């Protein structure tokens, strides 16, 4: 099989699908040309992610990575969410095929962008080095 049972479980029964109206932070990465887009919505209370939802256009591992990543940050302080790595997401899914690792990168970056959006909207100072710059993703180039 291409995917682990965990990936298939999160793909077929994705957790946290949907939107949050008036979200405190929204992050989006990818583009339709490349075949994957992830959008993450965060509800933040006292620097804690009280709710998270996602929408994903993409392959099985993109949907599974979004689902797993949102599970991993739900209820967690922002600083923990910022430390979530794509490797941790892939490991939690019992691994991704090598050519699908970029899906876990998208999940990590979508979350970071959503947090960045929250900081910017609220004028909260942040450390630039903690956030991806858009040119770092080589997926489409």
């Amino acid at each position, binding site marked *: 099989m291409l995917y682990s049972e965990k990936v*298939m479980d999160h*793909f*077929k029964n*994705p957790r946290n*699908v*949907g*939107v949050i109206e008036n979200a405190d932070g929204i992050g*989006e990465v990818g583009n*339709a*040309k*490349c*075949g*994957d*887009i*992830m*959008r993450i919505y965060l509800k933040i209370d006292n620097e804690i992610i009280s709710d998270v939802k*996602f*929408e*994903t*256009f*993409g*392959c*099985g591992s*993109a*949907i599974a990575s979004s689902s797993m990543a949102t599970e991993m940050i739900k209820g967690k302080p922002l600083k923990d969410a910022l430390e979530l790595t794509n490797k941790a997401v892939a490991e939690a899914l019992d691994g991704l095929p090598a*050519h*699908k690792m970029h899906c876990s990168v998208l999940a990590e970056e979508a979350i970071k962008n959503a947090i960045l959006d929250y900081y910017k909207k609220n004028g909260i100072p942040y450390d630039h080095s903690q956030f991806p710059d858009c040119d770092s993703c080589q*997926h*489409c180039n």
Partner: protein
Amino acid sequence: MKIYADNAATTKMSRRAIDAMIPYMEKVYGNPSSLYTIGQEAAEALESARQTMAEHLHCMPREILFTSGGSEADNQAILSAARLGEKKGKKHIISTAFEHHAVLHTLNRLEKEGFEVTLLDVHENGLVTPQQVKEAIRPDTCLVTVMYANNEIGTIQPIGEIGSVCREAGVLFHTDAVQAAGHLPIDVQAQNIDMLSLSAHKFHGPKGVGALYAKQGIRLTNLIEGGAQERGRRGGTENVPGIVGMAAAFAESCANMEETAKKLTALRDQLIEGLSKIPHSILNGDRTKRLPGNVNFCFEGIEGESLLLLLDDAGISASSGSACTSGSLDPSHVLLAIGRIHDIAHGSLRLSLSEENTEEEIAYIIQTTGEVVDYLRKMSPVWRDLQEGKRSYVIQ
């Protein structure tokens, strides 16, 4: 329900082909080059298979070379024509943008050697015209290679007319008929075909066996050096059971061709009609000039791999031209060649039917595909943007 709808990828072997092969594994396992009885019996089986293939292609048995499949036949046909051409200083080849990679990658290799390749544009309906071929032919053209039917969108090219254009111009004409053989009538003489590739596993024969027809007088270049098998044009002990199975499957497919085509066309049209009702979907390839069993759609706002996985979960085996399924970053070159942009080419679905499919199965595929597309759209940010007017529809 378990539904196999990926017959363009490969087919289930026919009972008759399996039965034809078994004796050549259990009893007549001799090497056709050996002179004792079971060797000579194997050699006879080989020649009888060659005869069968030749009859159905309307050529002479000596014009049939057995290969390991369609890819090898394509490689050998193109390389042979190139070697013949370069001897006369002719190093220009004409093909199309939507050939199989067995053709395109062989052409790439020749380009690196200094050949010039013209890839004809494919019209949005998935067809190239004889006129395009005619206009592209130059004094230094040594080969025209145009596929008979496309493996993704199933469109059938005007092979006979292209053959005439080439014959008139005195240019060799090869066609990759891997998707056509056993499904569409072939007459290499009437259609002026100089070389033709086919593959057994696309018409209910075994995998790893195919044939190259090369008109008498065309000197083939070996891909495999070795013994004197295949009149010295392909070294290696012949795959006797495979070849026998191919001939049996080919004879059977050709005998049932009309009847099968009639049945498949009805199922195909039922499927096209049903899937067309999904909003923002579009059929890829001409509505009628397509293989009887081929259906190929793009659905806006979703990605093909997730569609395939959910269809598989519902028991349906199909395929897609999305980047994720092609193993590269780009979606199918065929869909791009007919002008589908990346965004929607990622959301493609190919269903290729066989005579085993039923109307009930088609109804189930239509219903399930509709549900799965709807489900995926509901979690797609692209779909949301389309619905909210933040992005404009590519497919109306």
